[in-house]
């Protein structure tokens, strides 16, 4: 039996909405505002869970496993999987769907791959707007997967109601270094691949390494592919997200405003670089023909605080 066309209509509308907000401008803003109004009218209260961690840690597999458990009790679940665009070609290879089973007949699931496009090393600028649209479409549990690196971590920490850091059993130096910053903002750290040797040891290391005081993240030991510890992890996620109330939606709008500002500045910088205005201004500053103060206003339209 072919997939029901009517079935897919709602998902298609959401999918096209996300494409629309990927093109910034007044039309994108209107879509986002309509989505917010709809969510307020329908008293939605989606839980946005950020998943971050090293490449190959099992973020997509874990999001899929958590989605299955949540879906089994009737929750409507979406996964937004973000991967970097190539700086050189502008293209991207978005492969997270390989780990996420398709459920073509199930309108209670939605998966979308998002490229970072012009967002540099930040979280994809469109991520917050996409969660706003997905919430308005009636999804109450939204996973946002992003590779853990630099600025993207700050972005996902800002956007997510609950931030889950996924680790593999390896826990090498590189992972340790990466962890330092992210652990301060993580709500939960899940050591994945518990079916593999070394996972228990990595979990124990982590537990003894983390202060157990207030603010320390919850720890979990799971296997996405063997399905071990997944229900418990979902319960931990829900507990961490409980009591967010309307804060969740306000947080998403905050994250969107920051992303919009970053994207605006990025565009101004590109423009000033391409037009030569940046070089001209720098030359004038060196020659003493222009003051440093006022230059970023002149170049990028950013107002400078008086004591800057």
């Amino acid at each position, binding site marked *: 039996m072919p997939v029901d*066309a009517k079935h*897919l*209509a709602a998902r*298609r509308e959401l999918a096209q909405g996300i494409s629309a907000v990927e093109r910034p401008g007044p039309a994108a803003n209107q879509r986002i505002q309509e989505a917010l109004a709809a969510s307020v009218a329908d008293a939605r209260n989606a839980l946005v869970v950020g998943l971050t961690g090293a490449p190959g840690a099992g973020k997509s597999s874990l999001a899929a496993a958590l989605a299955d458990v949540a879906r089994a009790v009737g929750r409507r679940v979406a996964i937004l999987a973000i991967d970097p665009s190539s700086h050189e070609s502008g293209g*991207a290879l*978005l492969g997270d769907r390989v780990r996420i089973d*398709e459920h*073509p007949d199930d309108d209670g699931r939605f998966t979308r791959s998002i490229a970072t*496009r012009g967002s540099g090393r930040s979280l994809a600028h469109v991520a917050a707007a996409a969660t706003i649209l997905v919430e308005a479409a009636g999804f109450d549990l939204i996973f946002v997967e992003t590779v853990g690196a630099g600025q993207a971590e700050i972005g996902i920490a800002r956007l997510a109601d609950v931030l889950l850091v996924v680790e593999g059993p390896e826990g090498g130096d590189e992972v340790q270094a990466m962890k330092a910053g992210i652990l301060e903002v993580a709500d939960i750290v899940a050591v994945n691949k518990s079916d593999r040797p070394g996972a228990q040891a990595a979990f124990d290391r982590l537990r003894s390494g983390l202060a157990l005081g207030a603010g320390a993240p919850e720890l979990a030991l799971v296997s996405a592919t063997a399905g071990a510890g997944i229900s418990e992890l979902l319960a931990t996620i829900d507990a961490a997200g409980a009591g967010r109330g309307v804060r969740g939606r306000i947080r998403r709008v905050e994250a969107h405003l920051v992303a919009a500002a970053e994207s605006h500045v990025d565009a101004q910088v590109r423009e000033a670089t391409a037009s030569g205005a940046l070089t001209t201004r720098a030359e004038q500053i060196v020659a003493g023909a222009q003051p440093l103060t006022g230059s970023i206003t002149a170049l990028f339209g950013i107002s400078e605080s008086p004591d800057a």
Partner: protein
Amino acid sequence: MAERTTPIRVLIAKPGLDGHDRGAKVLARGLRDEGFEVIYTGLRRTVDAIVAAAIEEDVDVVGCSILSGAHATLLPKLVASLRSSGASDVLVVAGGIIPEADRPELEQAGISGIFGPGTTIAEVATFLRANARRR
């Protein structure tokens, strides 16, 4: 029509039951390097799964990697299913070993491009840029 401001999105699918996806992966990487956003879905996807993924990803192109003529029968089904789901403006192309005799029927069914072995990535990219929907 207005100039495109966003990359063309391509879903690379490998319908049917056989287990080789080397060609599909080479194409996926190659198109990324040509500036496309490539969504790769992995092996053994059903036609329904490919259609749902194409809709959710709002792609401009679905590219199917086909290893034998037998799989070519899936392609008309895929085009028909995309059309009935309201995604009739999605370009469907296929690559692989497709017998010359099967081509007219596939073209008739709405497969816009058929790329045999030896087609370069640049040729595929040029074709997609010329034929994908504008927006």
